């Protein structure tokens, strides 16, 4: 069984940012996770690293009030779907 997007995101925010486990729910706004602006930047960076993608700020600005962990997971899933669709149309040449 594969790890869900939420499980990966939850692991990162807990292990790397020592977030209170009771706060790690889809409906919790990122602002309420107890992370300051620096930690929030680091968290998004770690998430992008884990999923090998970038989240352009017009798709998701973590500083925007009300954006939740659930919204973040949805944005990741949407981005992964976009990239999968893009690769299907323009497959990358095989690398040595």
């Amino acid at each position, binding site marked *: 069984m594969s790890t869900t997007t939420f499980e990966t995101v939850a692991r990162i925010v807990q292990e*790397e*940012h*020592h977030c209170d486990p009771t706060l790690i729910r889809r409906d919790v706004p990122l602002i309420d996770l107890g992370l*300051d602006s*620096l*930690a929030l*930047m*680091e968290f998004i*960076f770690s998430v992008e*690293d884990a999923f090998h993608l970038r989240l352009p700020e017009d798709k998701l600005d973590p500083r925007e009030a009300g954006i939740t962990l659930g919204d973040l997971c949805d944005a990741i899933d949407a981005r992964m779907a976009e990239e999968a669709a893009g690769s299907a149309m323009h497959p990358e040449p095989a690398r040595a």
Partner: protein
Amino acid sequence: MSGAPLAITGLGAVTPLGAGTPALHGALSDNLCGIAAREIVIEGVERFTFGAAACAGFDERQQRGPSGVALDRGTALALAAAREAAAQAGLGTAAEPAVDAERLAVYWGAGMGGAASLDQTTEQLYAHRRRMRPTTVLTTMPNAAAAELSMAFGARAASMGYACACASAAVAIGEAMRAVRAGWADVAIAGGHEALLTPGLVAGWQAMKVLAPAAGAPAEVCRPFAADRAGFALGEGAAALVIESLDCARRRGAPVLALLSGYGTSCDAEHISSPSSRGQVRAMRAALADAGLSPAEIGHVNAHGTGTTAGDVAEAASLAEVFGTVGVPVSATKALHGHLMGAGGAIELICALHALHTSRLPAAAVPPAPSMGIDLVHGRTPRAVAPFAHVMSNSFAFGGTNAVIVASRLRAPGAGD
């Protein structure tokens, strides 16, 4: 004109000889060596083996800093050492301070700051097209450790970073002494760190041809003052002191471990890397004058003693000039713990204090060349000597900064300490 002696009320260290000052003292008593062979491979560019002095078992991810960011390894070492020293001195923490925060200062040395993180991050950037972390600037800036320490202990008087190559920690300690004596702070956390055992940085040192090849027994890799010396063992580590006036220590009920009696600094202003005896002599004499002591009253010197061709010759001449030929027993502890760069001045001061308190001088494995004219303590075991009252620790850096510290027992030997 001499300055008032200050109390050392806390010591902390993480070094290639172990984590914590008890481990360091134990290793020095047993004359252990923390050097081991390490290979560097940068595909298509470098492949070599050198003698490295690493803090094996130290995991920077286990150290949480007050900033909350993932710490550079050097900053993590600094925090670990400073926390041990602060605990011994009873300083408390930023959340529960035991001293007036606005009278507590941090003076911290590092040769290259967060360079290891920068080396790793830029390798990711250029070789693997991976973006820089948002906190790159904050973890690699040379004052990162001083900043973390100031936050950890709530030090609001000053947070100063000193970059003086291999004299950084000694300078930080000396400048902290000056600040406390002048009344700019009551208590200071002073010391230094270095962590640069990443491939790019080590390759930089290798390019200068100063790294000792890792041939033979670890204890013989770095051979200070020896005829066949071949460079130093590059290392990492951190050490911290807490210093304050004797009055302040007594009022607080803090333990007085030893006294800092004198500090002298000078600059060669001659060559970017080759040392000058004249500059070293001036720094040693300045430290003695600051301590109000004559050379004959110094019972032991912890030399800078890197094991380089030029460095050892200059220092041997300087020691002869100040103390007379074979005039004072000298230990070159870089043979045991490696060249700890920005941390060296602090770690070697702790080695000097060890000698002061135990009357046993750490030994380098290989004897000095007779032409050096110095009494280098050598062999497999420390040399036992009659108790003495004062010790000197030398740091003579690339760039020409010389920093010398004199430390003393709280009471004269035989007076019941």
